[in-house]
């Protein structure tokens, strides 16, 4: 549970704690029995299960590949004592491959973690202004408000937020979409039905879509139209700051809320 946040904690957050617990368990078992720490099998299972869960949530293969490599790597560390064709050399090779995979997929892995973290901040920022919990979810976009902007301003704003990994920006001829999600990753070509986004069109209309997954991450069933309106206001406010050259205020606001 995260203090101050209106959102449920992400499952990935248990990762560091679980690693610490499994390592401690392995050390204690090794010292107590003087044998190979069999708890490493459970440790390997943990990486694999975490990889599968994160893949099913984000739809990014990176998580699945890393989970499998790190999980089987952990198994490899003790399996070499029982399986004749495994050795220290094969284990080191496995570790090198695992770290290489992490290095190669780091932009995707880090980019997605950053996007998700910022999505949580955006939702928390919007939720600060919502005090009723009457639910009212619908998968239709919410027609938020009118905002004043020119084409170059809104595209610049979208590129700025995209570059800072606050959102994934999609810039089309007549529309700019700022996509974000706590579930399916918006990194790859996103399915807009399954992620949240704020849409700015050429006629200065702003509309907001919150996906069912993202809405269900809230601890309370916040009044949906108010939440959408508030999220629209957050982005319009960001846009105003950007137009005035006060981009730093966007970061201040994002940092001011719970993750």
């Amino acid at each position, binding site marked *: 549970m995260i203090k101050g946040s209106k959102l449920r904690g992400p499952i990935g957050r248990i990762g560091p704690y679980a690693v610490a617990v499994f390592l401690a368990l392995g050390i204690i078992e090794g010292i107590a029995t003087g044998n190979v720490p069999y708890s490493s099998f459970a440790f390997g299972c943990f990486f694999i299960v975490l990889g599968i869960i994160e893949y099913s949530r984000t739809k990014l293969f990176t998580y699945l590949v890393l989970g499998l490599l790190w999980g089987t790597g952990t198994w490899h560390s003790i399996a070499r004592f029982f399986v004749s064709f495994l050795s220290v050399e094969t284990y080191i090779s496995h570790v090198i491959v695992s770290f290489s995979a992490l290095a190669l997929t780091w932009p995707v892995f880090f980019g997605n973690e950053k996007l998700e973290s910022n999505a949580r901040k955006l939702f928390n920022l919007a939720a600060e202004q919502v005090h*009723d919990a*009457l*639910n*009212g*979810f*619908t*998968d*239709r*976009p*919410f*027609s938020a408000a009118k905002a004043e902007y020119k084409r170059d301003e809104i595209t610049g704003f979208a590129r700025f937020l995209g570059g800072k990994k606050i959102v994934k920006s999609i810039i*089309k001829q*007549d*529309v700019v*979409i700022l996509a974000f999600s706590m579930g399916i990753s918006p990194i790859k070509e996103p399915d*807009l*039905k399954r992620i949240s986004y704020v*849409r700015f*069109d050429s006629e200065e*209309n702003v*509309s907001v*879509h919150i996906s069912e997954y993202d809405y269900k991450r809230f601890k309370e069933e916040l*009044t*949906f*139209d*108010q939440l*959408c309106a508030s999220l629209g206001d957050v982005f319009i406010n960001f846009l105003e700051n950007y137009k005035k050259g006060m981009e730093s205020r966007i970061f201040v606001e994002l940092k001011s809320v719970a993750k």
Partner: protein
Amino acid sequence: MDFKTAAKLGAYFSKDYAQNIFELLVNYKDISASEAASRLSLHIQTVQDFLEAMTSLDILSKKEVHEKKRPYFRYALKKKKIIIDIDLASLLQKKQHEGMLSKRIRENKDSRARFTTARYDPYISSVTVWIGEGRERKERKISLTIPQGKFLYHLPFPTAEFMTLAEIMQKAEVDKIHAPEIIDIIEWLEKYGVIKVK
């Protein structure tokens, strides 16, 4: 002529034997069902039904006569020209006059409808509702016209304030010329509990 009368007339006119019966009626001063049936090699009940239907539509007249105390009807043409004239505009006016545009609506809570949004454009492209329960549950998907889609894009959320159809149309920038198709989809959605009318 109203639409229902025209539809009934059309249904009878589409029968294979319709032209043959009318040929008899034009050439005979009057004719009974059994005479026409035997002449055309049809079942008497088929001809009887046809002649009765035409009588009810005021195209034929019938006269009861007796043959050795047995009564039967003889049919004669009342008019030699049948004009199907339907004023479709009357359907339109009827709905507009019902003050539909002043109805206050919003989406129903837990409507269980799925709205599919156009990928980058501000309108809903289709609505799917599920009818029935359990194994009897059926999916019903309606593809929307662009004005209908724009209208539904701006439909108030289940927890938002009710708005009149006219207000939503204005917000969605849908011209009043599209009002009938908006009313049509609203009636459909109301029927399946997707929208709530105040």
